[in-house]
């Protein structure tokens, strides 16, 4: 292992409007993560590289960034596994606020369209509904989503068309559809199979490649397309009956 790691960061200052690359050297350590390196640069040299971070263990989803061309979580990526100089850039497909901070409101708001809630009357609950471990297993994969937005950064369709609902929202919709306690599947399908919904996906598959929690949104979207076809057929029949 070398004595120092060379880190190149893409910076943007909204006050002056300048974009530039900065290189820093950080003392090497086998357990040094990218996030540790950025914090060392900020604390030692007061370089003011703005970034988001919270849990430092890969569960909160705040520290997404593009490192050597791949979208990753900065706190779970170790410097020793990467080719130097390590290049850190903000996530693609989102407007940049400052340095490594991007504005993800557009994508986060799309979660609402997946109707990610159950609709039981809520004031009191006397008993729990039954759910076997096998039924719970059906939602195991897609319920791991930490909303880190790496899939939106990897999806070229979302990059070219900001109206597309996106992988994480559809995966969340799939998770609620498959939950045995859900009762609003039809409403959710109407929302997700609209013109900005599942049909815009052309199965590039990059979202599943970058997902740090193996949620497999690409698989969920394709399965949702199959469900969507059946749902559309059913609603045409219903309309005809009326």
């Amino acid at each position, binding site marked *: 292992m070398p004595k120092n790691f060379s880190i190149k960061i893409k910076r943007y200052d909204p006050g002056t409007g300048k974009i530039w690359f900065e290189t820093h050297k950080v003392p090497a350590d086998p357990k040094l993560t990218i996030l540790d390196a950025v914090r060392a640069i900020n604390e030692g040299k007061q370089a003011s590289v703005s970034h988001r971070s919270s849990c430092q263990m890969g569960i909160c989803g705040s520290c997404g960034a593009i490192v050597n061309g791949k979208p990753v979580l900065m706190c779970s990526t170790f410097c020793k596994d990467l080719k130097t100089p390590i290049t850190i850039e903000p996530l693609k497909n989102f407007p*940049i606020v400052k340095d490594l901070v991007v*504005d993800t409101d557009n994508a986060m708001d799309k979660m609402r369209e997946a109707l990610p809630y159950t609709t039981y009357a809520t004031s009191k609950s006397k008993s729990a509904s039954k759910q076997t471990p096998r039924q719970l297993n059906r939602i195991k994969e897609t319920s791991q989503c930490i909303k880190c937005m790496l899939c939106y950064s990897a999806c*070229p369709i979302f990059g070219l068309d900001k109206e597309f609902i996106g992988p994480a929202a559809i995966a969340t919709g799939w998770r609620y559809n498959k939950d045995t306690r859900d009762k609003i599947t039809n409403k959710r399908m109407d929302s997700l199979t609209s013109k900005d919904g599942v049909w815009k996906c*052309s199965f590039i*598959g*990059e979202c599943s*490649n970058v997902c740090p929690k193996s949620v497999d949104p*690409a698989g969920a979207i394709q*399965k949702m397309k199959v469900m969507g076809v059946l749902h559309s057929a059913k609603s045409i029949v219903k309309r005809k009956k009326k």
Partner: protein
Amino acid sequence: MKKIQNKPGEKWWNEKPSYRLYYIREYSGILIALWALYWIGFSIAILIARILIEYLPETNTAFGHILFLPLKYYFLFTAIGLAGAVIHTITWLQSMPNIFPFRLSKFQKGVAFGVLILVWIGLSAVIYLTIRSQL
């Protein structure tokens, strides 16, 4: 304070191997379309030739000339069509296990892909042998 837009570059499809593979997959459809257009053109040529033979028998040689042009490029266009069809079929079968409505592990998806390839080769062989015995 102004935010800067961060759109994908003009050559976004060239940035990653998986994006390039996606483009090859989608463009194989164009190869098949070219082949289809060739066959449509060829069919129209045969139709015209038959009409000519029926009503203007002295244009027998003209008939040969009209058919000759498409025939010259027969192997080229068949090769293009075959390449497009093979790429498209393989990539389509590769993504089919992902859309089954039940969950499969990576190994099971590989096995499913293998089975689909075998079925495809098997069906193609059956069709080929049937047509050969008819000719």
